[in-house]
């Protein structure tokens, strides 16, 4: 996915750029709180006097990081299990498919709220940026592998039954090599779409959780956390900027996923192109 690559690159480069240009997302300046946008601070300052542009950039990176790592993890987990179920079949497929249906019936947000409000110190874990983010990522992965599993299982079931796979097996190709040589290349294209969808979903989910105060912890910004702060402070730029950034990013990803119109189907004319000719 080209947009995802660009977004991740931006998430890495923009904070460095803002650091290099001297934008500081941390320093509190209470006497300058809610300062209106100016050339030096294009989005103004937030309710604690921190530069909003620097915080938006950092929050964007945090959100993209959480959603990106979760999407990669969930897609990899789902793809791995899907290949396993699709090529092994039998009881492996049975157990994993029922497991998928079980996970599917768990509503995401309430579970995340429940687990998000668990006090980590009870289990001897330090409460910090990293542990809370890790908890978020692990939960997202455990809840988000379903789409990848469904897609990959279906494709590998179909591909494993094709003659060339059977031929390879007869010629003595091992199961592992078979999977990497024949099955995975075939599911790569749909997997990219699954990855992009998972990324969008996780951005929205993280945004909702952080908005409720259960996501990314306080001094660190994220897109959802910035929305919540913007709402309580009431500044126009503080409310609009994080949402518009989210919308622009997900729009870009979404526009690449949705199917376009077939080229020759103008006002209901019968489509005539190469794929319509009898084979």
């Amino acid at each position, binding site marked *: 996915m080209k947009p995802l690559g660009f977004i991740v690159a931006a998430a890495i480069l923009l904070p460095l750029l803002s650091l290099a240009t001297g934008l500081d997302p941390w320093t509190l300046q209470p006497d300058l709180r809610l300062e209106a946008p100016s050339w030096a601070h294009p989005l103004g300052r937030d309710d604690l006097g921190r530069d909003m542009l620097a915080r938006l950039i950092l929050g964007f990176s945090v959100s993209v990081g959480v959603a990106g790592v979760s999407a990669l993890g969930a897609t990899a987990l789902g793809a791995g299990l899907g290949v396993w179920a699709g090529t092994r079949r039998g009881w492996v497929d049975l157990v994993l498919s029922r497991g998928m249906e079980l996970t599917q*019936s768990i*509503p995401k*947000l*309430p579970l995340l*709220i*429940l687990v998000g*409000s668990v006090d980590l110190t009870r289990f001897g874990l330090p409460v910090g940026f990293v542990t809370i983010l890790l908890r978020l990522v692990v939960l997202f992965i455990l809840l988000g592998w379903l789409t990848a599993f469904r897609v990959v299982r279906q494709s590998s079931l179909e591909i494993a039954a094709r003659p060339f796979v059977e031929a390879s097996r007869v010629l003595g190709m091992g199961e592992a090599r078979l999977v990497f040589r024949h099955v995975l290349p075939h599911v790569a294209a749909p997997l990219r779409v699954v990855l992009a969808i998972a990324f*969008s979903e996780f951005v*929205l989910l993280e*945004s*909702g959780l952080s*908005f*409720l105060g259960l996501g990314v912890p306080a001094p660190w910004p994220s*897109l*959802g956390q910035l*929305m919540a702060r*913007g*709402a309580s402070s*009431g500044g*126009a730029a503080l*409310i*609009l900027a*994080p*949402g518009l950034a*989210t*919308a*622009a*990013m*997900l*729009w870009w990803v*979404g*526009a690449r996923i*949705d*199917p*376009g*119109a*077939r080229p020759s*189907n*103008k*006002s*209901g004319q*019968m*489509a005539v192109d190469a794929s319509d000719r009898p084979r």
Partner: protein
Amino acid sequence: MDALPAPAMTDVGAPDAKPGSALLALLRGEVGLSVRYGRPVWEVMVPRLWATLALMGPALALSFLLALGIGLGSARWARAGFGRGLHAGLLLFSSMPMHWVGLVLVWILVVQTGWMTLGDRDPFADPSPSFAQRALPLVTVVAFYVARWGRHVRSVALERLEASDVRFARSLGCDEKTILLRFVAPGAAVPLVALVAQSFPVLASGLVVVETVFGYPGMGRLIFDSVVLRDAPVAASGFSLYAGLTFAATSLGDEVHRRLDPRVRGRP
């Protein structure tokens, strides 16, 4: 909060209760007192449940119809400006977090212009939400679900518009309106039913973020608060209700899907 007579029920958590009495009480539907409100759980929950259903029922129905209409329209005129515009709208609204849409609505209509008031009221003293408290969440939820479902309808409809039976009908001289309504719409509506059934538990148990933004006294907010404030009886009952709703909605959705879609009719 006006004084209510002390609830005439056993406290199931009492240490002097007989063994098994908690289970018996549970079977009678007594799930204990809310720690936060000091009242029986159902007394706390039922008004919230009605408030949520009053909001989400219309939202669900409206979203279904609009998603079908807009999705079909954007597929039918996919190359024209009209269809592209509809698709852009669908993309835009599915890209914006629901709570942010709500925030902007509140910010514009309540804070900036003062056209509406949300009011900060005690859900027990006055359980009926104000007009803005009803209308704004409805608009927010509908916008999000129409966008999400509409994109799905659009992609199914685009596929259907090129399917061989539709092309055959077209070659026989069938006009586009009939094609859209007779061939494409049913094909797009059936998977949408399954999608709606999947979302029903989320909607019926209340959308926490939306209810938070608008201060709407619904189930989602109640469950969220009970988890955060460690109100265990309310949280446990809320989640159980949720589980039951999920089971019921998924089963119902499967059954409806089976009846509507001939391809899955024979399968168990």
